């Protein structure tokens, strides 16, 4: 799902973006202004608009009026994000066929439940983009970066080359020549392209590709590194030609996060995506989502094998403080696939900031386990056999006793679509509890 957030309050946009990205795995861009929102909507396809009502210059009602009068955008799903409770305002909204209403203050669990409950689907337009979205950088699939900034080319290649070969060109003309000589699956188009502008470059790249598919990614400037608001020049009318875009940054951690979308995934995530491509759009940060649910839920410790029909299995493994190797496996029953709306795949442990976030969450879950199971039980070890992380097992495996005690637990309160196995390997003494 590709979402446009329109709210004049920057902290609120930041919170919303986090919920969309981390809880739902949706992509989003943001604007603080209704006028700019309309401009962006006219230039790029979005699957959903999250719209504040009270904004300077052009408020939410004005945006809605324009959208509903537009042949192109009249059916765009719009969810209002506001703290407005006045009856007359709510009644007025019903005239605009809004898909939903999120009341501020925003809370992740509630927002995620409401948005997934809408049953939105990516627009048909994204069918083509969906195909190219699987085209990634890998050791066997080089990518091409076209950018006039020498520093950025160096930075980009040094950061990205661990995932696959990166060819670089300093101008649009040079990049086009390289592409014609040796086509690649993914082309990153940056700035300072020389005499040939971005629009013509993209057109010529597609012409040169012919029947071959190519994923063209705009590497665009960030107006504010913190907020990740993409600067969009009024004269830039080539957005519709992009298959994707990434934030232009010199921060390695930020780059890793941005670039993760263009890297070929391995392991259970990729295996599942290949087997069940329909889950791809909805997949993303389930481990964090599951942990988020767990943190708010009572946990019940279940000793021994947790016998359930397992459909999905994802594992993250993180070293903490060079003292502990923590491996968390999330298993979801087949029934749970529907129950959690298909969002069920966790990020790889190497996915930059997200891994750090997961580390925090693992940390918290470990604390929870202490409380529920006691130190003796948690002083246990080892990750699952490597092969298991790539399989879809029928049930949780029993680990040999010498590998340590394993805790399997599930949530209570009727919300138990998953099981989690958490194993902590103590890398050095002293014992965990002190």
């Amino acid at each position, binding site marked *: 799902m590709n979402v446009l957030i329109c709210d*004049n*309050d*920057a*902290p*609120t946009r*930041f*919170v919303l973006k*986090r919920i969309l990205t*981390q809880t739902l795995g949706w992509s989003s861009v943001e604007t603080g202004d209704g006028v700019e929102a309309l401009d962006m909507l006219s230039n790029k396809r979005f699957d959903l608009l999250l719209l504040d009502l*009270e904004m300077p210059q052009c408020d939410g009602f004005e945006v809605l009026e324009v959208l509903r009068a537009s042949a192109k955008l009249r059916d765009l799903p719009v969810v209002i994000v*506001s*703290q407005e409770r006045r009856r007359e305002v709510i009644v007025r909204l019903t005239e605009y066929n809004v898909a939903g209403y999120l009341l*501020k*203050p*925003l*809370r*992740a669990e509630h927002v995620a439940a409401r948005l997934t409950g809408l049953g939105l689907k990516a627009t048909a337009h994204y069918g083509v983009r969906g195909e190219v979205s699987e085209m990634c950088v890998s050791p066997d699939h080089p990518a091409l970066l076209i950018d006039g900034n020498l520093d950025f080319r160096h930075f980009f290649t040094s950061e990205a080359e661990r995932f696959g070969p990166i060819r670089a060109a300093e101008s649009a003309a040079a990049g086009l020549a390289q592409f014609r000589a040796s086509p690649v699956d993914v082309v990153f188009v940056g700035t300072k392209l020389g005499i040939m502008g971005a629009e013509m470059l993209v057109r010529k790249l597609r012409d040169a590709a012919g029947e071959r598919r190519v994923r063209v990614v705009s590497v665009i400037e960030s107006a504010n590194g*913190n*907020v990740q608001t993409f600067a969009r020049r009024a004269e830039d009318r080539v957005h519709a030609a992009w298959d994707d875009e990434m934030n232009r940054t010199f921060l390695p951690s930020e780059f890793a996060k941005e670039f993760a979308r263009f890297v070929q995934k391995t392991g259970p995530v990729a295996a599942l995506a290949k087997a069940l491509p329909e889950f791809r759009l909805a997949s993303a940060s389930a481990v*964090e989502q599951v*942990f*988020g649910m767990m*943190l*708010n839920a009572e946990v019940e410790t279940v000793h021994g094998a947790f016998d359930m029909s397992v459909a999905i299995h994802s594992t993250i493994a993180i070293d*903490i*403080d060079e*003292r*502990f190797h*923590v491996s968390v496996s999330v298993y979801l029953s087949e029934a749970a696939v529907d129950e959690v709306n298909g969002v069920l795949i966790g990020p790889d442990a190497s996915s930059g*900031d997200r891994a*750090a*976030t997961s*580390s*925090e*969450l693992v*940390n*918290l879950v*470990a*604390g929870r386990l*202490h*409380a529920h199971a006691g*130190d003796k039980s948690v002083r246990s070890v080892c990750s699952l056999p490597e092969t298991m992380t790539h399989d879809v097992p029928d049930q949780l495996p029993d680990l040999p006793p010498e590998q340590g005690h394993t805790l399997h637990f599930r949530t209570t309160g009727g919300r138990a679509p998953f099981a989690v196995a958490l194993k*902590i390997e103590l890398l050095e003494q002293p014992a*965990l*509890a*002190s």
Partner: protein
Amino acid sequence: MMSATLKSPGPAFDASAVFLEFGGDAVFIRRLAALLSSSLPVYVSDMLAAARARDVHRMATVAHAIRGSVGNVYAHQLAALAGVIERTARNGRAVDLSQVSDLEKAVRDLLSEFVLWAETLEGPERARPNSR
């Protein structure tokens, strides 16, 4: 437990709730603090200007914005105060200027406490398993 990273939160916001809502993501919380530090003073400045101009419509709009913004960090008292000003102004009544002063102070308190608290949070690179 996780309280190891909750360092003496002030009463201007609910630190535990913020910590849980954002999954203990120290990086995110610090960025959020930076954003609040940028936006809230602007709202306050707008509010003071509107109060001086006796522009109740503008006061209602700004109070509404403040209420929405600080709700993200569970600043209940400040949100309530902004709500009172918003309702009064929406009804076309003059807002007591002392309430505007209270609002200004409450924003100041929130920012100082929230920023300080955010800085004390342990970042992911320093995350440690909790021990009892």
